[in-house]
């Protein structure tokens, strides 16, 4: 196939060529960056929380009135929860993964240390905590019933034993093979006593999904009550969560009437809420990509149809002079390939320019190099598909057209 005649034909309709090229260039630049953002969001959303998400749910109770005794209410509630059929484990806690609200603080290796060694989330649980979260204890032991204390937000002294996630242990004690038995301090207060690591769980995320310390969690053996309120985490037997959720709400409500129950929510619901914005972003960007590819393809179809119509006589002449249908088909395909390629080269540069702008303005990561070549292949394919219809129509122009006058 001779490229020169195509080039010289293209030079005669520069504007149309520039328009298609520009469209292809912008499409490539936008699609690459949008796909990259979608990929990042999907990566965020698929991180495991470390807890059993399918079978767990939580509910909060807020007592009211002067006579409300929160400590006895909590122990009555826990006894009730654990006696219900279908409940595998239940604990009190103050926070969950995927909830974006909780308590975090710094840990140190020595008393009076000026800056903390690691930041972590605190989950105050009882001896069923590890089991209720469905976390996996990989070293050491679980809490014992006699280790569980009771505290309110006004209390200062912290428990003396703790279970931490593997990620937190690695940050606290990077050179220690077995962190069980290691000690640490809460904050940098001079007079605080050390606490000992008694167990390691594989993973359990902190509540804040966008925090850099999301894998750092410390379980502490204490029932934490915020005044008159308490929160329960329940793990149902597999497949019975929804039935148990209803049952728990009814039973807790009738057991004690001087309180309000709220926040009954499954962990799955929590996950979908906490990542709602990321999911929305992927859907919106995905729609833009589809619409953009559609518009660009239609644009190519429109322009190619126009060129075919404009050159009907020329095609007839070529056919009359001996060009085969295949020659005509290939002519339009090659033409499209050339225009798309020029557009793609410009688009590749533009894609990196967009990426640099996003990096500069939003501290976004750099666009990995392979997005652009993949985009090239996709848009080449799109261009060829779009031009196929008009090119086939061109190839069917009979040679006799050359002899007719318009």
């Amino acid at each position, binding site marked *: 196939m001779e490229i020169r005649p195509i080039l010289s034909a293209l030079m005669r309709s520069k504007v149309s060529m520039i328009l298609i090229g520009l469209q292809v260039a912008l499409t490539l630049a936008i699609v690459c960056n949008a796909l990259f953002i979608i990929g990042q969001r999907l990566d965020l959303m698929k991180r495991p929380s470390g807890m059993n998400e399918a079978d767990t749910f939580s509910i909060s109770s807020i007592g009211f009135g002067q006579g409300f005794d929160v400590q006895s209410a909590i122990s009555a509630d826990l006894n009730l929860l654990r006696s219900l059929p279908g409940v595998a484990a239940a604990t009190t806690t103050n926070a969950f993964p995927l909830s974006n609200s909780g308590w975090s603080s710094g840990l140190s290796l020595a008393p009076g240390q000026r800056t903390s060694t690691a930041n972590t989330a605190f989950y105050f649980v009882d001896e069923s905590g590890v089991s209720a979260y469905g976390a996996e204890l990989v070293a050491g032991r679980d809490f014992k019933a006699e280790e569980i204390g009771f505290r309110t937000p006004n209390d200062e002294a912290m428990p003396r034993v703790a279970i931490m996630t593997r990620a937190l242990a690695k940050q606290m004690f990077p050179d220690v093979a077995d962190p069980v038995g290691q000690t640490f301090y809460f904050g940098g*207060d001079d007079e605080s006593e050390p606490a000992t690591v008694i167990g390691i769980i594989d993973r359990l995320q902190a509540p804040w999904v966008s925090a850099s310390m999301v894998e750092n969690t410390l379980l502490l053996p204490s029932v934490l009550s915020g005044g008159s309120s308490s929160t329960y985490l329940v793990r149902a037997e597999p497949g019975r969560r929804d039935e148990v959720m209803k049952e728990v709400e009814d039973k807790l409500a009738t057991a004690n009437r001087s309180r309000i129950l709220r926040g009954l929510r499954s962990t799955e619901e929590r996950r979908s809420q906490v990542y709602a*914005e990321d999911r929305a972003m992927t859907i919106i960007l995905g729609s833009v990509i589809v619409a953009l590819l559609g518009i660009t393809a239609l644009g190519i179809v429109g322009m190619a149809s126009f060129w075919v119509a404009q050159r009907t006589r020329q095609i007839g002449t070529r056919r009359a002079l001996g060009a085969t249908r295949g020659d005509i088909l290939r002519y339009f395909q090659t033409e499209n390939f050339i225009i798309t390629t020029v557009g793609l080269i410009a688009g590749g540069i533009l894609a990196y320019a967009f990426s640099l702008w996003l990096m500069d303005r939003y501290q976004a990561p750099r666009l990995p190099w392979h997005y652009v070549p993949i985009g090239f292949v996709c848009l080449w394919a799109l261009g060829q598909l779009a031009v196929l219809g008009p090119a086939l129509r061109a190839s069917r122009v009979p040679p006799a057209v050359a002899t007719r006058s318009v």
Partner: protein
Amino acid sequence: MFAYYLQLGLRSLRRNPILTALMVLGIALGIGASMTTLTVFYLMGSDPIPWKSSKLHYVQLDNWSPDEGAGSDGRPPDQVTYRDAVALMTAGKADRQAAMYKISLPVQPENPDVKPFMALGRATYSDFFAMFEPPFAYGQPWGRDQDAQHARVIVLSHDTNETLFGGVDSVGKTVRMDGVDYTVVGVLAKWELRIKYYDLTNGAFNNPEEFFLPFTTAIETKRRSTGNNSCWRSPGAGWEAYLDSDCVWIQMWVELDSPARVEEYMAYLNSYVEEQKKLGRFPRPLNNRLPDVKQWMADQEVVSRDVEVQVGLAFAFLVVCLINTIGLLLAKFTRRAGEIGLRRALGASRRQVFMQFLIESGVVGLSGGLIGLVLTGLGLVAVRSLYRQYANVTHLDWAMVMTTIALAILAAILAGLYPTWRACRVQPAAQLKM
């Protein structure tokens, strides 16, 4: 002549329905995408209280740790301590001032048919109402004297009054919350804030308050904030130690009526912190700030990065749609060279041909804009279902409807300019030869 060109344009558009549909659809999609994102962007970022946003200032004091700053890039904490809030309230150096924090309380309705429920509220000072101007349906705010007396008084929201008293004037009645009786002094009319700008720390799109009560009363009844609380060192044991600590959990707003007053107040804040430094507090260098409403919204990134990226992307998409339309119009007009030649030969001036084709592009733009408007409506419904918290920023108002149509016509005319210009350069002689 306009009517005639319009008729010509419509006839020509009907002649190639597919091409016309492509052009209209292209513009409609581009307009729909860009206006959807622009509406969200505009409503999120727009000034919530334009008549006095430059007079309302948020107080930031840097009481953070000597070793670590509170925020990235050296920002002071976004809330203040109880000690400092009370000191600033007592000094009363601003034209108006209100410290505030988020609380929630169990409400025990007298009516046995209404179950007890948790209500979200705000503990604040009487100046809050004059500063942020919520509309009252009944009664009025409590007074400064009631702040001083820790009075058991309450202002209910429209909805809470609806739930508890069926919407009647409940001023003078009592509401029992967690065993304490509060006397209703005022009931708000519906108060729909797009952005809860006075408490951005706890969420710009957080639910509206169901009640307001005096800050001093909430402190006396030992109500902790149910919003954000940050401490750089342990507050120590007990409620008194917590109040005395360096934990920040209170939002502090002041109203300052002129730039000179802002400067005076800043000077006062600096001297206050210098005094505190003598007591061993505020170990960091002096870093007090007084952003006004718009500055504070920008600092707290109320308009999320995602929304900004979406707007940019949508406009890039509109550009692609426009380029597409230019190409298609060019194709269409070029094919009509014969018709143009004939009209020119029969005496039409270039100007007239130009007008005719520009009107034809305008018709494409207008239809694209109208369909785009419908798509914008659908797009906003979609955004609302994707982001539930954006319910207040996904409405089309008249300004946005007019902007949409204007943008569509402008876009189509811009897209039509070059093809039109090409069309009227047709040489009549060249076309009539054949």
